[in-house]
């Protein structure tokens, strides 16, 4: 081995020659070194000169986290400025997926600290799987002080947890005006697919029904954000600046709290709807639908139990019956029949002899009573079916349909609330179109008393009566004062809620007086069907309706109890001439229109009392007690296990 023998440094070398490394090879080495450095410099040039802007943006994104500052939602007030819907501060917990190191390790701790079952966190994560990584995932809303303390104490182990101060909706207690006000909730996937909601991102809170939905754009304001400098573990190192949130606009509803309270009370324990409106303006003064629900449950901690309870309730608490119950209007339709008959100059001279019904086209059509000699003046207070069978037969379905349509039946009223339905006003054309069949003259007879194929909503009837009672000027019903809404938005809202809107029907003075006088007799004369509801000293007029839900024969054969009782309708107004308030009442299975009239009289009474007090300059202070947010406790299960 060469390495084993001693080498003398002064020797010339093992081979006996004084070697040197060739200069050429060392020069080559210099070029190689220079070449390598040039390649590296090129790499630096590419990153630091050519790519600098791009990488600077990436670096900013790396270290700046935008923490949203949520805009408080606009509050809602009644027409006199009394608070209906407020906000309260709340803290939510979010998961930042970018900060997650090993979720499997962290999950049990998060689950324990925030009192959320692991499976629920996993299912939440699955739901957000397609969302971009930087988007925070809401884990739990309205967390307790204990849970906030837990997050603060585990900052280092769980950098992925982040709290966010929010303002949550606080609705009045016991579902007060719930259908009118609506509720807020997380924007749904279907909504996000809708171009109208392009502005929203998943997780955003959005109005899901009622005023909350229609006026969401005004109420929501604009979220701001705080730029926080963070390190790679999400630890805050400092602040850069912030964009303040623009709070949502407070809105004044046309609702009168006192009348709303009266209407809520009137329908308590019943199913149905009440609409009160100002016929001059179309302002809705009260709107109730029963059964109701608690909108607070939707904005925080909607539990599976509560949702199942609401969804499985056969009386459909989520349905706004003022706008969505399309039922046979029964005898309230006789007002529209009277308008048609008088305007066509048929009813003025019509006299019938009521013997408990009459025969048309080989069929006997029954009346409640033997009214004897009936003309237009007592047909309304008597609510004599025989008279209106005859009138319907003489007018024919298309003439009836012309008037009914002109007062707004079979179409939406265009009120600024979502999900209004059209109801049905049959005609020969309608039947041909929907059933591909011709109209039989016999079918017209039932329509004359508001049965058969005709259906209407309480809102439609309220608007129809408002127009007729004010001499033919029909106003679009609305729940927000126009001056609360920017003009361009008013336009957009009217377009998104198409309907009969404002309209004028030339009603002669004689006919108008005749109808309103007859309606006054319904409540003020002992012969009227709603005399039990009359108010002493108040010129309260109206029309009852008792609409069969099943035929007389079928009713005789079955004994289904409650749900076979007729629906009780009443539309009324005060005062008789030039009324200031119109009320429509639907009491489902309320048996007799008279019963609904008594409910309406409670609202009229509240209205009149208020006027009296105002005239006496007495200050009124009635406010519904707002719900207090239940103190979140660690024991509160967010989603109970399925039963």
């Amino acid at each position, binding site marked *: 081995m060469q390495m084993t023998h001693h080498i003398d440094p002064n020797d010339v070398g093992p081979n006996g020659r004084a070697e040197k490394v060739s200069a050429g090879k060392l020069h080559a080495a210099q070029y190689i*070194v220079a070449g390598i*450095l040039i390649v590296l410099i090129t790499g630096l040039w590419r990153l630091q000169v050519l790519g*600098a802007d791009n990488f600077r943006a990436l670096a900013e994104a*790396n270290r700046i986290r935008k923490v949203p500052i949520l805009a408080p939602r606009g509050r809602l007030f009644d027409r006199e400025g009394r608070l209906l819907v407020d906000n309260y501060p709340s803290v939510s917990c979010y998961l930042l997926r970018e900060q997650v190191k090993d979720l499997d390790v962290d999950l049990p701790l998060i689950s324990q600290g925030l009192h959320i079952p692991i499976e629920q966190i996993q299912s939440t994560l699955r739901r957000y799987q397609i969302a971009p990584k930087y988007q925070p995932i809401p884990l739990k809303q309205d967390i307790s002080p204990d849970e906030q303390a837990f997050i603060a104490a585990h900052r280092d182990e769980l950098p992925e947890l982040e709290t966010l101060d929010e303002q949550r909706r606080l609705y009045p207690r016991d579902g007060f005006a719930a259908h009118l006000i609506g509720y807020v909730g997380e924007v749904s996937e279907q909504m996000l697919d809708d171009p109208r909601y392009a502005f929203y991102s998943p997780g955003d809170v959005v109005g899901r029904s009622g005023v909350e939905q229609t006026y969401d754009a005004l109420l929501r304001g604009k979220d701001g954000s705080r730029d926080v400098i963070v390190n790679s573990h999400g630890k805050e190192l400092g602040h850069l600046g912030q964009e303040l949130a623009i709070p949502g606009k407070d809105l004044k509803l046309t609702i009168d709290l006192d009348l709303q309270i009266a209407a809520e009370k009137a329908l308590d324990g019943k199913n149905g709807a009440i609409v009160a409106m100002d016929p001059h303006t179309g302002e809705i003064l009260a709107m109730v639908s029963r059964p109701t629900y608690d909108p607070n449950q939707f904005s925080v901690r909607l539990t599976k139990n509560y949702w199942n309870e609401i969804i499985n309730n056969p009386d459909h608490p989520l349905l706004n019956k003022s706008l969505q119950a399309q039922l046979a209007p029964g005898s309230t339709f006789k007002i529209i029949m009277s308008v048609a008959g008088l305007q066509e100059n048929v009813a003025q001279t019509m006299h019938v002899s009521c013997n408990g019904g009459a025969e048309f086209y080989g069929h006997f059509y029954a009346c409640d009573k033997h009214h004897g000699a009936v003309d237009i003046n007592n047909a309304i207070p008597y609510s004599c079916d025989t008279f209106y069978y005859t009138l319907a037969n003489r007018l024919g379905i298309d003439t009836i349909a012309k008037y009914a349509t002109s007062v707004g039946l079979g179409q939406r009223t265009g009120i600024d609330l979502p999900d209004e339905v059209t109801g049905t006003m049959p005609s020969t054309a309608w039947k041909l179109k929907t059933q591909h069949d011709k109209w039989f003259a016999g079918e017209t007879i039932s329509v004359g008393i508001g049965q058969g194929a005709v259906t209407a909503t309480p809102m439609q009837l309220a608007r129809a009566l408002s127009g007729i009672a004010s001499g033919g000027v029909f106003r679009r019903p609305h729940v927000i004062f126009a001056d609360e809404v920017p003009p361009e938005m008013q336009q957009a809202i009217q377009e998104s809620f198409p309907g009969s809107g404002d309209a004028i029907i030339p009603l002669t003075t004689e006919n108008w007086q005749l109808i309103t006088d007859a309606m006054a007799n319904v409540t003020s004369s002992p012969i009227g069907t709603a005399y039990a509801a009359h108010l002493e000293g108040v010129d309260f007029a109206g029309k009852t309706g008792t609409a069969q839900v099943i035929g007389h024969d079928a009713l005789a054969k079955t004994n289904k109890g409650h749900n076979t009782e007729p629906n009780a309708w009443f539309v009324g107004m005060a005062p008789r001439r030039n009324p200031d308030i119109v009320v429509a009442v639907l009491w489902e299975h309320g048996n007799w229109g008279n019963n609904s009239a008594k409910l309406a009289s409670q609202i009229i009474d509240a209205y009149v009392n208020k006027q009296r007090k105002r005239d006496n300059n007495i200050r009124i202070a009635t406010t519904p007690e707002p719900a207090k947010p239940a103190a979140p406790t660690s024991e509160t299960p967010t989603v109970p296990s399925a039963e």
Partner: protein
Amino acid sequence: MPRLSSYRDFDWVLLGFVLLLSLISVLEIKSATLHTKFHGFDHKQVQFLAGGIFLMFVISLIDYHRLIDIIHWAYGVSVLSLIAVLIVGTKVLGGRRWIKFPGGIHFQPSEWVKLVLILAVARYFWGLAGKELTWGDIGKAAAMVMVPMALVLKQPDLGTALTYLPILICGLFLGGIRVKQVGLVVLAIALIGGVAWKSGKHLKPYQQARINAFMDPDSDPRGSGYQIRQSLIAVGSGGIWGKGANKGTQTQGDFLPIPYTDFIFAAFCEEHGFVGAIGVLLLYFLILMRLIQNAQTASDLPGSFIIMGVVAVIVFQIAVNVGMVVGLMPVTGIPLPLLSYGGSSVLFTFLSLGIVMNIRMRRFVN
């Protein structure tokens, strides 16, 4: 002992450049550890530097021919120490690389094996000077390097193992390997490498992941691609002038992984920009040119071989480390000489420089 006047031949210019880089290193380590638990590593680096400079002067006193004389013993001890590491070594971060001595001293044999190999290769090719290299010669040289390399790979420490390769390549190049032989060797390596990569058995999963991440850094931005991605962001966002000392957001915000060792150049590039980076590379260029010049003026063949071996290791480390930081090379844990924090690296570099000084001081001896 050399006469004191020999210190006139000490390469003071080279030492000046080296100390300038060391100063930059200390300042950057200070900045990169400012907000971390490694705060104060700059002081430790100063201690390492002091130790390194002391050892540089000590080793320059011992005639390098004496070192070559005993190199076969040193080689044997090296191999034994590498085997010892595998048996009794302290396991840190999944690898056995250190031998722990009483008193808290950690010794990483693979670092000083570098120096041993430089001397051994020089000694070996000196013995072959003037004759054409046979396949047998090439095989023996390769075996000399590959045995410790295999032991270090076993630890596993791919980065350090790879730094042995340039010593062999440099030796073969200066020793007179012919073009035809180079071609065949390259072909063989390509074949073996290809088969090894295909079979996937010879690279640890994390090593494969690193190479995949190098090919496509965005494929796994939170996993293997994280380091390279954060490094590119740090370097790129530094721009032409940099963000200023202690102001690198990637470095200070702890986004850049280990910014005081393997990624120190990325931290420096972020804070001092393209201009600063060019400055550092220029210093390296001057140091390397100075070393090659010393190789030219060395009085004998082993002197030139040793210096060029040192050059080869330093160039390789710069190429791999800076190449990694700017995204031209896959991630390998190789420190950047004179800049990265760490005692072993500092000691190796200054011992190497000590031997270079040693050779320079004796250039007029024969």
